[in-house]
């Protein structure tokens, strides 16, 4: 669990919602809360702190792109949360699949915040 590095008390964005397979196509940021629910917002500048709001902690965060029922990329990119464990990102991928989304082969990409290594494709 991590608290956002930006601890400003942002309000929760009114567009924040639990992910569903009916989400319109597009680019999104996501935050997984401490209960395991994944909430999303349309991608935009500095959106992660506003997904849960109130500087609430998260168990994972990142962004993704959706086309139809396919998730075409899914990453751990979030400057304010900076999760970098592969298991957490793979767990998010499974959560996406459980609601009926299909993860495109090669879509799950783990970026490093600490090692300077290039990104890895997890699955």
């Amino acid at each position: 669990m991590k608290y956002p590095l930006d601890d400003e008390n942002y309000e929760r964005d009114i567009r924040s919602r639990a992910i569903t397979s009916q989400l319109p196509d597009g680019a999104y940021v996501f935050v997984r809360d401490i209960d395991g629910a994944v909430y999303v917002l349309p991608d935009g500048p500095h959106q992660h702190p506003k997904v849960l709001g109130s500087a609430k902690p998260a168990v994972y965060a990142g962004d993704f792109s959706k086309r139809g029922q396919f998730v075409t990329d899914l990453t751990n990119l979030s400057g304010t949360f900076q999760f970098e464990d592969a298991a957490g990102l793979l767990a998010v991928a499974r959560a996406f699949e459980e609601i009926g989304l299909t993860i495109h082969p090669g879509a799950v990409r783990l970026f490093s915040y600490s090692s300077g290594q290039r990104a890895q494709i997890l699955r």
Partner: protein
Amino acid sequence: MRIVILEDNIDRQLAMRQVIADRFSGHILEFFVAAQPMIDHLSVTGLYDVSLISLDNDLELIEKDGCLVDPGDGIEVARWIRSQPAVTPVIVHTTNMSAGDQIMELLSEAGFIRERIVPYDGEVWISERWRTSVRDLIVGTEPHRTMSSNGVQILRASHHGEGSPEKTLREILRAASLELCGSVDPSGLCLELLRLRTDGLLESVTGTGLPVLRELGAGATIEIVTESADSFGTGPFSVNKRHLSDEFYSHLKWLGITQVQLDVVQPSVSRQAILFIAVRQSSTDLASHRNQFAIREARSLLEVAFRQFSRRNETPYAVHLD
């Protein structure tokens, strides 16, 4: 990993820093306000740990020792970049339309993935267009360059009076095959370059030696990744004389290979060339999916090699591999 930007406007730099910090805070951000220092720096570091380059063109004169110094421009940097292997995407962000066109053309000829953004409305374009382009280009390309030795191989390419591009390609393919075999799947994966003949048959560019394929032995499944599968359709098909040249057909039969899997992917290195990939597994099992990244990696390797040849009008090359 680094993001390298030619931009002398402080307000733009600040907005760009915010964008990078929001998503790519693990990347090192390097700004340059003049062309030559950027070229000098990249000449030392190379491009293989650069996730993205973003180029402005018109730069303010720089005051140095009481004199105004010409900082050069984005075109100068683009001319240097095009002499390098096309291993990093480039954004061209300038309002100078003719210079922007020229940079795009330079990079296009050298095979770089590039994107043009014309700035608008102060720094608004940075949080809108530039932000999404940075994200998509890095997410789309950075993981595909996981094998640093690919770059090393191409960097070590040098003129050689003898040999041929095909011989060089064969060497590259063999080295890549062996490396991929070791790093991706212990049971093996190999590469071969095929050519689509005018009569519609596939033949091996490198002859029928197929040294790595031989190591896979009987029972291997073959995947052919091509940009144009019109002649074949997609999915598995049996090794047959209708699709393969006599020589190639005979060789596959001799190896005991009975089935070919054809997949369609994004446009490949050349309309004449097809990357041929053999794996032990069927294309539908998990191990084969794991190999997909290696397939992309191999394609990337070939793209770099082909650009090296085409840039020099197919001057024969020799690649020295350790």
